[in-house]
């Protein structure tokens, strides 16, 4: 099985206000098509780990491989390109650009990648929105739709560049149970039907139980 993501001996220290080891020798890997959740109590370092895996945080020790390519030590611009192409994000607070339409929000990462023409990107974006049953809202301004809808738009945006892996930081944390189920089902579908890899940080036990694998964390270590 092809390894989509692999972490080797990752250590992370916070230096302020006092020296504190947030992550202690984390090693694990995710296979293609796997739906993995990271669980743990608040402050156990699970979000910290996610941001390191997402390449946004570069201040760590150890090695990180994405698509069997060493990521550690790349420049900020290379990492930005890498995130753009290979990683889709879904956050707890949807983080859409409020002044832009839904469609523009979804199209933006693809435009940045710049591999397709404007028409192709627009077509793709509509397809992704259809997949998430939110295409009828495409021309609304992002600040005018409900929270559940926003989260689905955020997922559509994460999918637009057909990433290798989707990462979620409490993607259902801010949603009611109906919308949370909805988001979970979308993830499950993506994982099963499109063989997409997913890594989701959550403290929702029900959510985690339904995933393929649970990584339990405590005090900066994998338990």
């Amino acid at each position, binding site marked *: 099985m092809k390894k989509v993501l692999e972490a080797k001996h990752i250590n992370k220290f916070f230096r302020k206000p006092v020296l504190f080891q947030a992550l202690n020798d984390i090693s694990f890997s995710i296979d293609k098509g796997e739906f993995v959740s990271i669980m743990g109590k608040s402050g156990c370092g699970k979000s910290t780990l996610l941001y390191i895996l997402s390449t946004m945080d570069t201040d760590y020790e150890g090695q990180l491989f994405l698509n069997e390519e060493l990521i550690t030590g790349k420049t900020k611009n290379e990492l930005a390109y890498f995130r753009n192409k290979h990683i889709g994000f879904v956050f707890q607070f949807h983080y859409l650009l409020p002044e832009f339409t839904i469609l523009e929000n979804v199209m933006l*990462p693809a435009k940045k990648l710049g591999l397709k023409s404007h028409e192709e990107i627009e077509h793709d974006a509509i397809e992704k929105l259809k997949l998430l049953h939110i295409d009828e809202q495409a021309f609304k301004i992002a600040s005018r739709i409900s929270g559940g809808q926003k989260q689905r738009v955020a997922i559509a945006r994460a999918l637009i560049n057909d990433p290798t892996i989707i990462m979620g930081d409490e993607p259902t944390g801010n949603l009611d149970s109906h919308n949370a189920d909805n988001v979970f089902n979308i993830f499950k579908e993506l994982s099963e039907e499109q063989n997409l890899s997913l890594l989701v940080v959550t403290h929702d036990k029900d959510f985690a139980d339904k995933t393929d694998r649970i990584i339990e964390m405590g005090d900066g270590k994998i338990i």
Partner: protein
Amino acid sequence: MRWFLIILNISKTHLLSRVKQTSIAALGVTFGIGAFIILMSFMTGLNGLLDGLILNRTPHIHIYNEISPNLNQPASLYSDLENSMHVIHSIKPKQTQLKIHNALPIINYLNTNKEVKGAIPQVKTQVFYTAGIIELNGIVTGILPLEESRLFNFHDYIIGGTPQGLKNNLNGILLGIGAAKKMSLKIGDRVQLATPKGDFISLKIVGFFQSGLGEIDNVQSYVNLKTAQRILGENANYITDINVKLLDINQSVPMSKAISKQFNVTAIDINTANAQFETGTSIRNLISYAVSITLLIVAGFGIYNILNMMIYEKMNDIAILKATGFSGFDVKMIFISQAVIIGFIGGVLGLIIGFVCSKLIDSLPFETEALPTIKTFPVNFNYLYYVVGIVFAMVSTFFAGYLPARKAQKIDPVEIIRGQ
């Protein structure tokens, strides 16, 4: 190119979603640039007018024979007194003629020089204007009217006549307006002159001369060169002054030295004759630039403030842009392009407002004795100030945007996302 369009599209959306803030920032630039254009156009217009008062009618080099004592007195030539101190009382100027020796060849020579715009002869003579038994002191200058007009804007000081009119009438005179008023003379009347030789000559008034300086207007009159030579009873090579206009005024000092050495005449350059005027011009320019730059810096701070606030508001957007693959440079360019767009729109509006106001000032009445042909305020519509204005607007807004944009570039998305 595509990358730039994406960046531009994002900044456009940002700007349009905050029309109020954007337009206030742009208005700051508009007022700055507008004031700059108005100030510079008006100031340099006035400068041009004031300089013109001196520059246009003053030759760059004035060649004549000066009455002065000989520098080499006989005592200094006597070798027995070589090492002694000479005390000579009551030195008299040496006897010399007023006419310039070989004037016509000198004029021809100067006119072939590439740096010379034109060299023209004048004949100056004292006369009396006679009205009945009253005799008024006067100076008559013989000129080539058309050349004088071409090189020294002579036509600006003529009322009721033209240089051509003077040229066509060998018995014509442009009488100083002060003298004309004293003698109650009108255009078409005849005026009698008593020449230094005691002859009387009657000339027809073809126009009045007004310089704006009362003392000059009371005595100065102009006739044709030939007429002046006739008044003096001299032939065509009698020329007392040569006025030279150069293409580059800065050449006047070396040129005048060369001329005076080569032809053994007195040659005075304009800088020596009018040292003060350049100082006034440069100080007025300095003040205009200082005021404009101050205005633009204030506008720049306005933009800096608004962009700074915008970046605080847009922290989340910046974080998400970075998370989805926009680099720090992209984010920086988004904010810089916003600043420059504000600068460009505000600047162009400022140019338009500046132009309209300048036009308005240009149409306001402004009457001055000094320049009888000027009827409205002088305004300089030099396109260069518009270029400087828009460049300054773009540059100052670029810097005003650069600092906040660099801050945005450095924002760590993790901190923002975790901070929620």
